[in-house]
Each structure stands twice: as C-alpha cells, then as structure tokens.
C-alpha cells in the first residue's frame, strides 16, 4: 500500500533529527565538557539508530510505501522523500550499525582525547553525525537532487573522518584518493540520472520510473550507474581507495564505512536498475556477474597478503561486495530471461548477504578497533596470544571470522548457500553459454570462500592465538563493557541470522514484491526449521540442527569423557627435543600466506628480497637475515598510475602557453580576434 506521510516516515525524520542533534551537541557542547561527546552525542546517535531501525523495520514488515515532500531547493524542484520496503531494509541495516557504534563509541573515542597526539573531538562527532545523516537521507531520497546532495554529504563527511588523524601522511593520501574517486563516481551517477531524467522529463524518481527508455539508453544509464555506484561499493578495479581509506579511519568509522557506506553503492545499483529503469536485461547480469566474481576472487587474494589487520578486513569488504554482486548478477540474468522466481532468489541472496556483511564486517572492524584500543597495533606481525588477555573480544572476533568465512551455522553461510543455489539453477536457462559459465562462477565463489577461510584462520590465529610477539600486546587488557556491548549486539545478530534464515527471508518478501512483483513461495513450506528456497526436493538446509548437534556433542563429551577421565595437566609444547621455544619461532602472517602467494603468484606484483649477512666460522652460517616483501595491487599500477601520469603530463605541457611574455599574450588575443573575424565573415 502507498500513502503520504505516516508514522514510520516520522520516525525516519526523527532519526535524521537525532543525528543532527548529536552533531550539534558535539559541536557546541564538547568544547567545554568533553564528557558530553561521550554521552550527549552518542546518546543521540543511539536514538538515531533506534529510530532508523524502528522506521525501517516498520516499513519493511508492514510493507508500507510512504511519500512526502519538502519546499526546499529550487522552486520548481521540490525535495521528494519516500520510504519503501527497500529503503526500509537498508535503514534497518544502517540503524543496527549505528546502534552498535553508539554503544562502542564512547569508550573508544575517549582514546583520541588522550592519545599522544591529542585530537579535537568536535570534528569527529560532527562528521560522524553528518555521515549517518547523509546515509539516512539518501535512503529516503525520492529524487535525483536530494539523493545526490546526501550522497555527496556522506562521501564528504566520510572524507573528514578518514583524514581525522591528519598528522599521519597515510591518512592524507587515503583521504585524497577516497574523495577524488567518490567525487568522480558521484558525477558519473549524476550522468546516469541525467539520462533517466532526460527520458522521464523530470528529476523526481517517479518521473524516472515512468520513463520508457530505448534499450541502448537504458543500457547506458545502467552502465553509468553501475560504474558510479561501483566506485562507492569498491568493485575491482575501482576499489583502490577502499583498502587505504578504511584502515586509517577511526575503527567505529571503519565499521560504518565497510558496514554501511559501501552498501549504499549496492542500494544505488538495486534502486536504479530494478526500480528506476525497471526492465532488467540479462546482458547486464552477465557483466555484473563477471565483475562480481573478479571482485570476490581478487579481493580475497589481495586480503590474504595483508598483515595490517584493518587493511585485510578492508580487502575482504571488496570480496563480499563481489559476492553480493554475483547474487545480483544471477538475479538479473534470470529476470532478464524471464525466470522471475529464480531472479527473486538471486536478489534475496544478494540482499541477505548485504545485511550479513554489514553485521560481521562491522563486528570485525569493531574487534580490530578493540585490539587497536588496547595495543595500539594494527600490524598482525606484532600481535599474538590476545585470546588470553582479551577473551571476550577474542570470542566476538572469532564469531565474526566464522561468519565471514561462510561457515555454518552462522549468517555468512546462509547467503552464500543461497547464491550457490541460485547458480545451480543455471540449467533453467536456454542460453548454453550462460549454463556453462554460471557454474564456473559458482566454483570460483567456492574458491573465494575457501581462501577467505584460510585468510581468517591466519587473521585470528596470528592475532589472538599463539604467544604474544610484543610487550604491549603481552600486557593488553580486556576492553570496557560498552565496546563489548557494541560487538556483542552484532555477534548475536550474526548467529541469529544464521540460525533462523527462514524468517529473515519471509521478512524480505515485501522488497522483492516491490521490485520484481514476486516472492519466494516455497522458502518456508516446511516451517521455520527448514529453509527450502526453491523446493524441498531441490535443496534444504536446517541450521538449528547443527547447533543442536554441536551442543549434544559438547554435552556428551562433557558428561561421559570429562567426568570419567583423569584431569589433564599442562606441559611444554613439542619442540622436537630442541631447546626452549620462543615467540619468534611462531609462524608469522607473511609465512602463513607464503604458500598461497606462491600458488597464485601472478595476481600481485611481488617484490621479495633477502639480505643475508654471512657470519664467520668454519661452517658458514648466516649471522643475520633481513627479509623484505612488497606486494602490490596490479589494478593500481595498470589503471590509475597511467591516468595520473596523463593528467600531470598534460598539466606540464599546458604550462607553455603561459610564457610570461606580454607579446605572446597580445598575439593570442590578436590571433583570437582574427580567427573569429575569419569564422564569421
């Protein structure tokens, strides 16, 4: 049903207002009482998150479409606002993360006020608020102008957050690159809207929906939109800003960025291609599928090579965006060739994974932030053994790792499973080539998933397990309750969404109804316990049973073995009979990923050099070995460096027109005059 105004919309406004208030509080109040930021500002942020969840959830579950307008902007161009299940869904996602960081933030940000380089807190608070506001409002936007305004506001405040600790050069580089790409992306999006507006005769989304485009222009509009939103989503090869920008931002912001901001790119793609353009074509699907597969695979491969924890997580965002896009691509292929149910399945898989990734990536970044908060370390090579010092954080982080590695019974697995199921319906297609490439794409997805598992074994194993590698890490303490609360919220959701997928999918029905006028009829034919996306015969999955099984085994093991066996005693680990083991004998992160580096050598630009200083003595043995490893992302070297050089070269050349000699200048105007005179007569 559709209506003007309505409570959910009011709630959404309330959410936006709360974000603004939180910004205002941190702008005006903080200077006098720093305490305010930690309470006032984050309190309002909490309210904003809650309100977003409420409004989004309401609109989603009650399947409402509410519209409204404001008398702002140019007179003939009102601000149109609309809350429908799709935006509601993303509102929900956003709200959840905001809630989590508003719990996590107060303790975490206090660090900046202390740290060796004291940062002023107001900018952080203000731009966090504006960042959230931008995302809330762009979800509500119902015309190109409003959308672009808040889209850019999101990018811009994101920039200020990335550059927040601007004393580090890395932050400045990252912020510059980020804003540059964001700006270019926004302009491209604008072009796509321009195409739609030219056909629809107006900038409001309703007019665009009513536009009837020729296939060529529709494809152009889609291509521009896909490019523009792809930049934000961090699609390979447009991703270069992402692994730089996310790590250097404050961790709760990184969580927002990876969790929410890049999802706005997905939102944009879905909104434009499914809603505004309307008729999806399968060719687009093929492109999206290929790009998605590439992103998934390259993203995880780049990620494995990282030893900066947050950077590793950032690269994994690229991988997961790729997985989401694979789902979208499949959905487009199926819709474009007339299989509505399968198209719906793909869409559901994509959206489900969007939600999941928001949750576990947020969780992981918060976890990384917790480690950073206590140890001031982002480099895995310096961590280790944290599970003993920060057990709860370790548990949360482990949940995140399991979820992102797509292991049952957590949520990451469900959405990837749905993607696989969609891919396996390829035989339904008439086009034999598609039937052939889709399963291969699925197999590559499997490869990506397996590599992700490897990567997170490394991440968790090096950071939390083993022995501490530095003193700071050895003396780390558990983080305050607020931060644990923020992580706990997300961790719980990760488990719930993994164990009760059926209900989630049913809740998503309004979205698919809105976009493709179709839902998954048989998803829950056998009740909430069994997830049967297509039909019980084709495939079924029941997460609760796995949980039960593990619980049972624990119980049995505990009752029978633990009680009856003799109590265990501790001893030294096995050292082959050589002397005392120390922490430097552990496998490092680089060592862990060495086999994979050798297997997939061509993906990176690897520069490896070993300097060995031979010692004296009858048996020549190395006194000291210095090992250096440079791993670089080809897409940077191949796509961006040339463009940069091109522009700089052009700028260098162009200088010669300004010789500083007044005669030359006079000659210019003389020549111009004569030229024009010659033209006109």
């Amino acid at each position, binding site marked *: 049903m559709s209506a003007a105004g309505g409570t959910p919309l009011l709630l959404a406004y309330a959410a936006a207002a709360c974000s603004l208030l939180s910004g205002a509080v941190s702008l005006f109040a903080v200077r006098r009482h720093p305490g305010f930021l930690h309470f006032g500002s984050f309190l309002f942020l909490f309210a904003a998150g809650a309100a977003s969840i409420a409004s989004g959830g309401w609109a989603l579950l009650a399947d409402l479409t509410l519209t409204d307008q404001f008398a702002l902007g140019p007179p003939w161009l009102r601000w149109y606002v609309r809350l429908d299940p799709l935006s509601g869904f993303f509102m929900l996602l956003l709200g959840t993360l905001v809630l989590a960081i508003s719990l996590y933030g107060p303790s975490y940000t206090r660090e900046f006020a202390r740290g060796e380089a004291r940062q002023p807190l107001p900018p952080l608070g203000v731009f966090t608020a504006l960042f959230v506001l931008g995302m809330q409002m762009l979800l509500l936007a119902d015309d190109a102008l409003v959308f672009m305004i808040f889209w850019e506001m999101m990018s811009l405040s994101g920039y200020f957050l990335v550059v927040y600790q601007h004393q580090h050069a890395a932050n400045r580089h990252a912020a510059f690159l980020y804003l540059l790409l964001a700006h270019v992306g926004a302009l491209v999006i604008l072009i796509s809207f321009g195409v739609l507006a030219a056909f629809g005769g107006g900038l409001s989304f309703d007019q665009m929906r009513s536009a009837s485009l020729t296939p060529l222009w529709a494809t152009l509009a889609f291509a521009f939109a896909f490019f523009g939103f792809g930049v934000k989503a961090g699609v390979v090869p447009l991703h270069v800003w992402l692994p730089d920008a996310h790590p250097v931002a404050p961790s709760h912001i990184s969580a927002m960025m990876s969790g929410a901001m890049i999802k706005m790119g997905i939102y944009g793609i879905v909104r434009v291609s499914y809603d505004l353009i309307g008729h999806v074509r399968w060719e687009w699907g093929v492109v999206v599928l290929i790009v998605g597969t590439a992103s998934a695979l390259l993203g995880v491969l780049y990620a494995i090579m990282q030893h900066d924890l947050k950077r590793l997580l950032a690269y994994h965002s690229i991988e997961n965006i790729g997985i989401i896009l694979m789902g979208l691509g499949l959905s487009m292929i199926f819709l474009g060739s007339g299989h509505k149910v399968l198209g719906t399945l793909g869409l559901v898989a994509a959206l489900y994974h969007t939600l999941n990734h928001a949750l576990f990536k947020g969780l992981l970044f918060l976890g990384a932030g917790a480690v950073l908060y206590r140890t001031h370390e982002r480099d895995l090579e310096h961590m280790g053994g944290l599970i003993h010092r920060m057990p709860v954080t370790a548990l949360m982080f482990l949940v995140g790792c399991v979820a992102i590695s797509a292991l049952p019974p957590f949520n990451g697995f469900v959405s990837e499973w749905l993607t696989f199921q969609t891919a396996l319906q390829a035989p339904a297609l008439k086009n034999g080539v598609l039937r052939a490439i889709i399963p291969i794409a699925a197999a590559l997805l499997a490869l990506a998933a397996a590599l992700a598992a490897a990567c997170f074994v490394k991440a968790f194993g090096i950071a939390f397990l083993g022995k501490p590698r530095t003193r700071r890490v050895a003396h780390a303490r558990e983080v305050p309750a607020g931060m644990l609360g923020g992580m706990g919220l997300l961790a719980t959701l990760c488990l719930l969404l993994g164990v009760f997928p059926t209900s989630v999918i049913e809740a998503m029905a309004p979205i698919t109804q809105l976009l493709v006028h179709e839902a998954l009829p048989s998803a829950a034919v056998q009740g909430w316990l069994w997830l049967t996306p297509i039909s019980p015969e084709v495939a079924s999955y029941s997460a609760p049973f796995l949980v039960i099984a593990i619980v049972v085994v624990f119980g049995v093991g505990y009752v029978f073995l633990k009680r009856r066996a003799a109590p265990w005693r501790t001893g030294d680990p096995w050292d082959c009979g050589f002397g005392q083991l120390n922490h430097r004998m552990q496998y490092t992160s680089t060592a862990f990923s060495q086999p994979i580096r050798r297997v997939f050598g061509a993906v990176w630009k690897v520069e490896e050099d070993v300097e060995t200083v031979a010692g004296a003595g009858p048996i020549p043995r190395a006194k000291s070995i210095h090992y250096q490893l440079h791993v670089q992302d080809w897409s940077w070297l191949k796509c961006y460096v040339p463009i940069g050089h091109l522009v700089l070269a052009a700028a260098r050349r162009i200088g010669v027109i300004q*010789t500083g000699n007044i*005669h030359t200048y006079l000659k210019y105007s*003389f020549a111009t005059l004569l030229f024009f005179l010659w033209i006109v007569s």
Partner: protein
Amino acid sequence: MALAELGLFSQAIILFAALVLFTSFIMLGQARTLPLIFTFAWQGLLLAVVTVLVAYVSKHPDLYVSAALTIVLKVVLIPWLLYRLSVQLNMQYDAELIRHPSLLLLGGAGLVIFSYYVALPIVRLSGLATRNTIAVSIAVELIGMLLMCVRRNAVAQVIGFMSMENGLFFSAVVSTYGMPLIVELGVAFDVLVAAILFGVFFIHLRDSFDSLDVVRLNRLSEADEPMPLQEAAGARPPGEHS
C-alpha cells in the same frame, strides 16, 4: 561609386583617411622613439581634420566637440606627456631593433586587405559617402594592435594602444558621425586617465626593471616551472605496503 562623383569635401575626407592609414604604416616601421611620438601626433591631427570635415559635411555640430577633444588629447596632451617622459627617462634617441621590417609592413598591408574583406558587409549598409573609410579604420586599429604585438619598448606599446583608440574613434566618426556626446566624453576621460597611468607606469617600470623593455617582464610565467611536488595520489601508490 567612383570617387569623382563625390563632393570635394568627401574626397578630402577620403584623402585624409588614406593619410591616417599611411601614418599607421609609418609608425609600424618607425624604430626611434621621438619620431614615433611625432607621427602619432600627426595621426591625431589628421584625425581631427577628418572629424572637422565630416562635421562640416554632415552638419553635426557635436562632432566639432569631439574634434576638439581629439586635438587636445591626441595631438597635444598625450604626445607631450610621452615626449616629456621619454626625455626624462632620456630614451628619446634610442632606437629599438625591428626584426624583418619589410615583412612587418607586408603584414600591415595584409591586415588592410583583411579588414576590407571584413568590412564589406557593413559597407553595404552605410548610406554615407565616406563608408569605404570603415575598412581603413578597422585597418588602423588592427595595425595598432600589430604594433603592440611586435614592439619591445613600452612607449611604442602605448603608442600602439593609442593608435588603436584612434582607429576606433575614426570608425565612429566616419561610420556614424560619432557616438552620443556623453559616451564620447566618457571615452575621452578614460583615454586621458589611461595616458596618465601609462606615464606613472613608465616611472615604475624604469625603477624596478631599469628599462622600458617589456620583454623583461617575464617573472610571472608558468612556462618552465617544474611541477609542484605535493603529496598527491601520485606520490605514493596506495596498493603498496611492506
């Protein structure tokens, strides 16, 4: 129409117009400063004469005013100013070297042809007897500009500038019997101020560059500066880390 059919005054006008053009050519070729100034004065005088003739022919009394303005400004004031300055900066005798003077004069001739070509559509319109002189006026203006383009000496540039003004003024007179008086006055005022400012600037130039050679004014240039080495995306490839 044939020249012969025109009245004597009109013929005189055309004759003087030709002389004005001639003076422009002389300026173009004149390397030494003082003669340049004098030629400029002559041009002004001829211009004034033309104006008076036109005023007489076309019974436009207010053209007398503008003729008077011309005499005061272009014949007396400005040349005198320039003369005093060049004496004061004792540069009245130095001559600058003009590269390929013959080529330059040829270029001037080319400009005359070009301006004739440009002016053709206008000439069709004008009902005045003296319409062909429009082409001449354009030519005078363009030649003035050419002069500015090739001369290194600031004084020469000023004179080029002023002779452009002459061309404009001339065109106004011969095409439309001059512009409304207020505009004329405004223009004249601007020219006067400009002349004074030029005078001021000669002093400044001499003080800071100890010559009036404008080619030395090349500090503010973009040509040979290296690119600034800022920290930009190019400075460090983001993919990298060790």
